[in-house]
């Protein structure tokens, strides 16, 4: 590999092995573009991808990642420094694949030029001694050599060999397209990477939890998203100006069979406008059936319940009303949520607890649970906190949990937590003149994912092209075949030899088959 080191004789007063800057660069380039380096980089890439499948990734599941970080306070700073929470954007992972790409381009470009020049090359001359080749055969025949060679020519032409007469021998070669396939495959890898990078840099992905009903709507601007992950070169000007609302949402609950209780056939009936003043259209958004608006795709990826809970404070004023989104934590849609009333008098009131679509009581655990995701008997069960909910100091906090550090939990006289259990339509009066809480009715929400992935067609075209190239490079067999016929006593000695240049083929079979073809026509 490092021919630059050895082939050049040491000039003037340099010590042997000492390199000029240019030689050093050339040596580095040779090293990077060598096959061995490419192989090691490939293995490194495989190895480097592993941590990302073991450690939760920020970009994949940020909730799981923050939970993991809370559980491992000692490891977290170390991991963070190593970029282990976002392995696939980390410097070291990028370094590997960028080096691999450099190596690939450095290997492919010279090979393409070489291939281009060699495309019209004639098959090489027949070696003097064909029987020295590992795969060869010989036989004698009474026919004159010219007849044998003529037959060999037509046989090889039928097998689409490129031929060259060479005295008493024929040189033939085929399978030139294998290298083309190989080059196409490697170049397509670069195309895929370009498409992938475009998606990552210019695209975005966002999610929004939207309540079902015509009263609630969504229009496509960054501030309307609950979570918004733009690429680093993303610009909001490219966002399509569509808007939609969820007119209706339907679910089929399996009531019989082994998966009874499972929800299927989710469908969100969207009313949408592609532009601000465009016509209103409708679409049934389902899992596996996204809605495409321009270059943006809209997906249904989740659903849940939003009980409408109203809090009246000690003065009888409504301090909190409207639907509250509860997040499902189980298959039966047992959900958690928080209702906060920071404006309540005489003190702020916060409720935290669970929602059960079809409530049941377990004697074993002594607590409620949800029997079914279908809302047959919905109930909320919550604990009450009073004091300072910490919502006025401007520190952002999750709307799904309460900051309980400066609050007290209401308890009963015997010291057990004071719990309010409300079925739909019920109202409960809080003690100490704090007010009342009512569970008015139930609404639903859908989690909608929206993404714009520029370059996805480039990436797809790249992989398809890569596959085509791959098929060519694996299944086209480049072969050289030589047939020599010369007078030998009364008859003709025919020698056949073949060479497989891909290293995968069974050349012996090729020789056998060719000899058989030559001899078969012998008799005809």
């Amino acid at each position, binding site marked *: 590999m490092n021919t630059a080191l050895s082939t050049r004789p040491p000039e003037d007063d340099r010590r042997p092995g000492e390199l000029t800057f240019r030689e050093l660069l050339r040596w580095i380039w040779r090293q990077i573009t060598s096959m061995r380096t490419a192989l090691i980089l490939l293995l490194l890439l495989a190895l480097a991808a592993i941590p990302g499948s073991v450690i939760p990734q920020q970009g994949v599941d940020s909730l799981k990642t923050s939970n993991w970080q809370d559980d491992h306070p000692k490891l977290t700073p170390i991991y963070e420094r190593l970029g282990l929470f976002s392995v696939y954007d980390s410097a070291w992972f990028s370094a590997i694949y960028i080096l691999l790409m450099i190596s690939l381009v450095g290997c492919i470009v010279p090979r393409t030029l070489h291939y281009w020049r060699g495309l019209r090359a004639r098959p090489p001359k027949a070696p003097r001694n064909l029987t020295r080749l590992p795969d060869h055969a010989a036989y004698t025949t009474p026919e004159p050599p010219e007849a044998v060679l003529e037959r060999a020519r037509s046989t090889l032409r039928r097998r689409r060999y490129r031929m060259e007469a060479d005295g008493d021998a024929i040189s033939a070669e085929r399978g030139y397209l294998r290298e083309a396939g190989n080059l196409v495959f490697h170049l397509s890898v670069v195309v895929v990477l370009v498409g992938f990078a475009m998606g990552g840099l210019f695209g975005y992905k966002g999610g929004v939890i939207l309540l079902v009903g015509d009263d609630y709507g969504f229009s496509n601007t960054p501030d309307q998203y609950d979570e918004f992950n733009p690429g680093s070169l993303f610009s909001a000007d490219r966002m399509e100006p569509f808007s939609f609302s969820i007119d209706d949402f339907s679910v089929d609950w*399996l009531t019989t069979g082994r998966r009874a209780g499972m929800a299927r056939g989710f469908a969100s009936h969207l009313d949408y406008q592609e532009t601000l003043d465009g016509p209103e259209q409708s679409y049934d958004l389902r899992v596996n059936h996204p809605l495409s608006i321009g270059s943006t795709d809209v997906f249904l990826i989740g659903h849940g319940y939003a009980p409408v809970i109203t809090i009246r404070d000690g003065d009888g004023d409504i301090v909190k009303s409207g639907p509250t989104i509860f997040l499902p934590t189980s298959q039966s849609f047992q959900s958690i949520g928080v209702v906060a009333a920071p404006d309540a008098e005489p003190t702020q009131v916060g409720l935290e607890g669970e929602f059960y679509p079809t409530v049941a009581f377990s004697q074993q655990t002594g607590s409620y649970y949800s029997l079914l995701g279908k809302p047959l008997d919905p109930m909320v069960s919550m604990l009450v906190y009073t004091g300072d909910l910490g919502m006025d100091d401007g520190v952002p906090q999750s709307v799904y949990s309460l900051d309980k550090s400066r609050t007290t939990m209401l308890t009963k006289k015997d010291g057990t937590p004071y719990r309010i259990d409300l079925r739909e339509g019920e109202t409960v009066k809080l003690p100490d003149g704090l007010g009342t809480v009512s569970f008015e009715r139930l609404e639903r929400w859908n989690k909608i994912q929206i993404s714009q992935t520029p370059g996805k067609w480039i990436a797809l075209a790249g992989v398809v092209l890569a596959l085509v190239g791959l098929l060519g490079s694996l299944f086209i067999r480049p072969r050289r075949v030589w047939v020599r016929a010369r007078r030998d006593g009364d008859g003709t000695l025919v020698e056949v030899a073949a060479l497989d240049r891909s290293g995968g083929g069974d050349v012996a079979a090729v020789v056998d088959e060719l000899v058989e073809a030559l001899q078969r026509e012998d008799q005809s």
Partner: protein
Amino acid sequence: MTDAAWESLSNQAVAAAGLLYFLALLAHLIEWASLRKMPVASGSSARASVDVPGGVAVATGPDGADDVAGEQRARRTAMFGRLGYLVTWLAVAVHLVGLVGRGMAADPNRVPWGNMYEFTLAGTFVVAALYVALYRRLRLAWMAPIVLAFVLSVLMVAVIWLYSPVAPLTEALDSYWLVIHVVSAIVATGAFTLGGITSALYLVKARSLAKHGPRQSGYVARLPQPEALDRVSYRLHAFGFPVWTFAVLITGPIWAHQAWSSYWNWDPKEVWAFITWVVYAAYLHARTTAGWKGRNAAILALVGVATLWFNFIGINYFSSTSQHSYAGSAPAIHVAPER
């Protein structure tokens, strides 16, 4: 037929297929045990030893006094070999019945790979079917005991630990991509598994040759020459790799884009599928790189098959973040509660 009847037919067919695989394995074990007593033809070339083991023995029967006894034994050995192959055919057919029954038992009817049990059932079927289909073309007689032992044990694992009754598909799986994506993944898995077995035997054979030189009897002595094993292994991998590319890098992303809004999510299953792809790409490169040919390439093939099966079974059990975890009960439609 009712769904319940189909389901019990499927269960019985799988049990019957297991039994048939076992019988075929027995037949081949008898064949190979009997072959131990016969010397491998001396000076057999690489090409001759690729032949059916019984065939070699017949062609090179020992000369001398015990000619008749030797010939009789050779005939019996060859018969057990043929019997084993025939029973394997039968087992594959019954295995197919089990698979089809599984699909017919679901309401609505569907492709039979909606959960781990069904994936494993389909995966082992492809391994066995590819083996019988390529038996003559690649002259795989020497592989018989190992393939059968593999298929039988994985099938047992499926029936004992992975079994789950027929149930309707979860929503995210309900797509025609389930057919295309999973079929190609399973077919590639079958080819890679056979390739991995061949590569393992390549290592065994090469080591035995290096340590003891050509031996006169025993299983290893009757394996084809390392070059022939390497070529068979390459052919299997060369078939599997494009299919795997199609499954993992084309249909997978297309489906992921439809179901999860992003064509590549770095989900653990995707990551491991990618790792497998990279390892097999390295294998194909290694076969043409000086210093990596032969032994190192074969080791890479084994690493590849290990990542493949870890992904196929392991990820479903060890990773809780994977959206591909179909082990256990079906996941609720994915919800990402974050803000």
